[in-house]
């Protein structure tokens, strides 16, 4: 309990310091000699200073560090033997015959998950558009997976798809769709498929929430006009609803793509990359490399390549969404 007390005091101190230093600035302004304009110029930096400090120290600096590590022999098990080894890490990376399999897996995983989430999310949003009894309660239940941890979802998935005691095999056999038990998690190809299902399940609420919100901002008179003109539901969807929600869809899909690519806790929990890297993606491979062999140099070189891909992606993202001009996510 002593540690807890210290810890809580630490947090309180950090927060207190933040409040104190910002409030001091504003208290001083009554008696200050600085002109109003000068003060106002400093204010935004003061407000953002704590956040930026934290991000620069704990985010930007480590990232720079890691790009240096990519060109080093860096094993955590031998911290005294760190030296620059040029492109050795990259060579080692591509000498690994599994790399292409892993790149293929990553693509499949991202494309299938995003597509599944989008289709189901859009369907859910469309069904939720008109009011029905107990709508609030229904929302609370159907959007729940958003709040769930990937870890627990992964556990449920792994247990349900268990080859011997799993409920999925049992159900499929009862429905006569398979004649004997399938080793979902032990079969190349199938194991990644199981991960994708879990990923889709997890992401449907987010898509639905976003699309629903976008649909609610469509002015009602547009629909009224279409009713008067005798427009059918399908046509209404493609000519009115879809064009209106298109910008939201683009932003959501692009953001989701990158989030899904980055997240691999489901993979770690459900298959741990197995069997034989058949469900490994690039980030999960990086995790395995870094913390099974403690070869941080090799893992960082993979990281540098990921960053290069990300730079291209972010540039594209900015072009497509015109994020800079809109100034909004």
């Amino acid at each position, binding site marked *: 309990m002593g540690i807890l007390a210290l*810890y*809580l005091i*630490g*947090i309180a101190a950090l*927060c207190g310091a*933040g*409040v104190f230093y*910002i409030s001091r600035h*504003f208290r001083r*302004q009554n008696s200050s000699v600085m002109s109003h304009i000068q003060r106002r110029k400093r204010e*935004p930096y003061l*407000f*953002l200073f*704590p*956040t930026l400090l*934290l*991000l620069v120290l*704990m*985010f930007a*600096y480590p*990232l720079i*560090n*890691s790009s240096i*590590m990519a060109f080093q022999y860096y094993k955590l098990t031998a911290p005294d033997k760190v030296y620059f080894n040029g492109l050795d890490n990259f060579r080692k990376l591509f000498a690994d015959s599994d790399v292409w399999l892993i790149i293929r897996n990553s693509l499949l995983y991202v494309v299938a998950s995003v597509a599944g989430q989008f289709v189901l999310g859009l369907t*859910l949003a469309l*069904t939720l558009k008109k009011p029905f009894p107990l709508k609030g309660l229904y*929302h*609370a*239940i159907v*959007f*729940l*997976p*958003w*709040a*769930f*941890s990937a*870890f*627990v979802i992964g556990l*449920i998935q792994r*247990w349900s798809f268990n080859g011997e005691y799993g409920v999925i095999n049992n159900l499929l056999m009862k429905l006569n769709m398979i004649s004997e038990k399938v080793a979902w998690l032990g079969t190349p190809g199938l194991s990644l498929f199981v991960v994708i299902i879990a990923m889709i399940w997890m992401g449907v609420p*987010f898509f639905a*929430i*976003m699309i629903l*919100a*976008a649909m609610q*901002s469509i002015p009602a008179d547009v629909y009224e006009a279409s009713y008067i003109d005798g427009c059918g539901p399908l046509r209404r969807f493609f000519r009115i609803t879809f064009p209106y929600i298109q910008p939201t869809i683009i932003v959501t899909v692009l953001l989701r793509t*990158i989030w899904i*690519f*980055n997240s691999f806790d489901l993979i*770690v929990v459900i298959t741990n990359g197995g069997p034989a890297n058949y469900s490994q993606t690039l*980030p999960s491979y*990086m995790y395995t490399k*870094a913390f099974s062999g403690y070869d941080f140099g090799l*893992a960082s070189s993979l*990281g540098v390549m990921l960053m290069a891909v990300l730079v291209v992606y972010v540039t594209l*993202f*900015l072009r497509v969404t015109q994020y800079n001009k*809109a100034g*909004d*996510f």
Partner: protein
Amino acid sequence: MNHKVKKSLFGLGRTFLLVFFLLLVILPIYWMCITSFKPHKEIINAQEITYFPKEFSMGNYVELFKLYDYRRMLFNSFIVSAGTGLCVTLLSIFGGYGLARYKFKGKDTMLLFFLVTQMIPGILVIIPLYVIFSRIGLVNTRLGLFIYYMITNLPYCVITMRSFFERIPYTLEEAAYVDGCSKMTGLVRIVLPVMFPGIVAVFVFAFIGAWNELIAGTIFINTADLWTVPVGLKSLIGKYDVKWGVLMAGGFCALLPTAIMFAFMQKYVVEGLTAGAVKE
């Protein structure tokens, strides 16, 4: 006539879809819940899989709390998540206000920086951060984990908070300043009460983000008495023997706080999720 048939068909399809999505969410949770109440023998009976426990048993829960000290894990998770939630909320109120109410040099770069942090895979930061933490003695501490959760949740929360601030007209504050109210008093007395939904949403984001995180936990924490819930439960997955009953019990308990939180704050959370994303 034709029109009526069409309409009722549409209604039927819609009801079908509503039920489908409801089942899609409920069935996996039901399966987890039901497994957690089955005795071990019934769980690993491959011949007969029961869809409702023949024999209700609290054995898994007893084992979880007695043998694996689940209370300790819950406690660790709670400390780290609550700390993250509080600090992130506080910092994003300031940051969001700064971004919403001022035009200043470097603002666009800052926004871009925040966006980019959202796109960089966590593992890319975790690896070098591990090296740094091990130098300054933050590996295997809750403080280190807390710092990591802060930096991963802050940018998104700042941006969200900014959108909430932008919805409040500046004239509201201005009136207070004209009346002689100081900046800080204005912020605390006038703006924050109106901002309540935003504050709740951001707190829930940060809390849930920290509560659910697994990877950084397994890397930064390696002694059992500091394990958070996901890390502790993951240790129960052995190579050959997996205690499914206990795992399901633990997973179910881990979902409850976030589920309850979400159920009560749903309106604010949904508002928060969309605030940052939908242009008005």
